[in-house]
């Protein structure tokens, strides 16, 4: 079997025999004549699914429980029951009526895109359970091989993910993107996972596979190799957890590790400060901008929680794609390219000046080292204007986010008038690759290892080095342990991520010297495409 590559969505490496999910029931090609009690049977099937999912939801906690309870609500839904009844009235047998009704509902969800589209998988799962019950065939679901194994599946439903026990070593799915249930669950459990791995369901059950959730590579190995890889993976994990303290390379070069937060509740003790404080939470659902005093107390809560640590606050990031009614922005054909981020200050300048005033008051009242940056800046003139507003408000440190390719190319000019910049890799990827962030079909183009995106990061880092000003990264990419080394090698000064990503990133930095990191950066930048870049760095 040749090696396969998907998208690594949860880091770590392990190996073991692969076992695929129980396949969903298939409807016989011949539609039988409907019986007199199809309606009762359909109702009983949906009730069975609703109660079994409800019961399952009580055996788990947290998000998994909520997701299952919601799925149970879907099975008991009156809209679904009506749609099924209408098809039975047309003469369809229960299993077919349910399949048709759910198929139609799935189309509606898919048309909404994004998170809503992913709920189509929840509907498919409840359909399969209802149909299996009606046809009296085994329930689709998790394999139970009796040994630790690599779970292969088309995509995982919430019900499947809730039932995963400690015998699952890693997850590989044929479909799914970075926001699928598989990805979210795997990250929360620290299980290596690869999604969008095309050939995974063709591998015979029992074949020993190695899974690398960092590089996305899935390869056949011998049983002995599988054992060695598994042990090495466990040792890696123990090693990561044992390393604490500030981020630094093996030769002691400091690379501070910061946190991305949306409020004081997200702030962990770990980490050397906050690299991205999103302030949108205060503004959402408002009919008018929140008063300065209210903003001040909210910022102050976070600054106080941060103690003397650094906090980089991002000013309001709104636009037609993240609308706020009081901004009064018009609907746009192409919101990602419209009035958003700092550009909203063109139409509502007072919202920004009031926010800066609130930040300044909160900063004065606390010990935190407060830095302020603007999102979605394209030109040096915008950066200079923002910096002067920040300084006028009495705040010392002003910067901008680098998310637009134009800003990356002109980093030198921008850095001349601000104190720092921070790169938002998610938007920088979207704009550089001209690929919508919400479009799962374009996941490969949005891969943060795209060498063209890395080239822009390197350009910004070089400008920062020359002008001796800090250049941080606060996108998802900073939480990828290998990319973190690549970024450090480019001269990026701080990395900001969500708290669970800290230990593996800290460990990766600690095991590379700065010279190693520079060499890895070189390898990534010289690669022709994202998979090659990732592979070269993982092997280098």
């Amino acid at each position, binding site marked *: 079997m040749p090696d396969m590559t998907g998208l690594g969505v949860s880091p770590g490496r392990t190996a073991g025999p692969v076992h695929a999910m129980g396949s969903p029931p298939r409807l016989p090609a011949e539609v039988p004549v409907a019986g007199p009690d199809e309606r009762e049977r359909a109702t009983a099937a949906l009730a069975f699914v609703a109660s079994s999912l409800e019961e399952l939801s009580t055996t788990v906690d947290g998000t998994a429980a*909520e*997701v299952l*309870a*919601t799925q149970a*609500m*879907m099975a008991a*839904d*009156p*809209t*679904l029951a009506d749609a099924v009844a209408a098809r039975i009235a047309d003469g369809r047998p229960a299993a077919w009526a349910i399949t048709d009704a759910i198929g139609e*509902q799935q189309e*509606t*969800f898919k048309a*909404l895109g994004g*998170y*809503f589209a992913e*709920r189509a998988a929840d509907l498919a799962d409840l359909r399969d359970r209802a149909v299996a019950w009606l046809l009296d065939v085994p329930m689709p679901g998790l394999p139970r091989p009796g040994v630790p194994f690599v779970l292969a599946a088309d995509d995982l439903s919430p019900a499947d993910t809730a039932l995963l026990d400690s015998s699952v070593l890693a997850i590989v799915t044929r479909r799914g993107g970075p926001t699928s249930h598989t990805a979210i669950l795997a990250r929360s459990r620290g299980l290596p996972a690869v999604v969008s791995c095309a050939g995974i369901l063709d591998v015979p059950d029992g074949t020993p596979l190695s899974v690398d959730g960092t590089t996305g590579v899935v390869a056949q190995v011998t049983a002995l190799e599988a054992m060695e890889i598994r042990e090495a993976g466990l040792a890696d994990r123990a090693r990561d957890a044992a390393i604490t303290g500030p981020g630094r390379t093996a030769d002691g070069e400091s690379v501070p590790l910061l946190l991305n937060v949306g*409020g004081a509740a997200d702030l962990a003790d770990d980490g050397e400060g906050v690299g991205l404080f999103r302030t*949108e*939470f205060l503004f*959402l*659902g*408002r*009919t008018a901008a929140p008063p300065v005093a209210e903003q001040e107390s909210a910022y102050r809560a976070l600054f106080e929680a941060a103690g003397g640590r650094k906090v980089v606050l991002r000013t309001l990031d709104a636009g037609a794609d*993240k*609308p*706020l*009614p009081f901004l009064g922005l018009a609907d746009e054909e192409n919101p990602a390219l419209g009035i958003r981020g700092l550009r909203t200050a063109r139409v509502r300048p007072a919202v920004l000046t009031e926010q800066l005033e609130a930040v300044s008051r909160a900063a004065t009242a606390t010990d935190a080292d407060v830095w302020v940056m603007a999102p979605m800046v394209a030109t040096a003139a915008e950066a200079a204007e923002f910096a002067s507003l920040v300084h006028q408000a009495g705040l010392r440190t002003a910067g901008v986010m680098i998310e637009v390719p134009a800003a990356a190319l002109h980093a030198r000019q921008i850095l001349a008038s601000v104190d720092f910049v921070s790169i938002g890799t998610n938007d920088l990827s979207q704009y550089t690759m001209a690929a919508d962030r919400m479009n799962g079909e374009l996941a490969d183009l949005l891969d943060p290892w795209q060498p063209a995106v890395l080239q822009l990061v390197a350009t910004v880092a070089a400008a920062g080095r020359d002008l001796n000003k800090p250049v941080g990264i606060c996108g998802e990419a900073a939480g990828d342990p290998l990319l973190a080394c690549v970024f450090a090698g480019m001269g990026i000064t701080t990395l900001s991520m969500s708290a669970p990503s800290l230990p593996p990133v800290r460990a990766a930095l600690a095991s590379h010297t700065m010279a190693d990191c520079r060499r890895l950066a070189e390898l990534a930048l010289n690669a022709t495409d994202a998979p090659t870049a990732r592979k070269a760095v993982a092997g280098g």
Partner: protein
Amino acid sequence: MPAREVVVGSRIGLHGRPAAIVVKTAQAQPVTVRISIAEKPPVDARSIIAVLALGAHGGDTVTISADGDGADAALDAMAEVLAKDLDA
């Protein structure tokens, strides 16, 4: 018929936890509460599938309506949960 406009307070929009809470609140009302967004026809707020199919994002304005005894109180209860950030 009493109706009201509410801005969706949940940052993530009406799915996941916020959608479940909104539907459960509707189910607890003595009258049928209907909910609509933009030009789409109003749907029964007791149906999770119908509520998800609204595709409502945080900051979107939705319209809720109800009729009969207790309609105003039902709208109060619904407006309260809709305006909150239920995922916070």
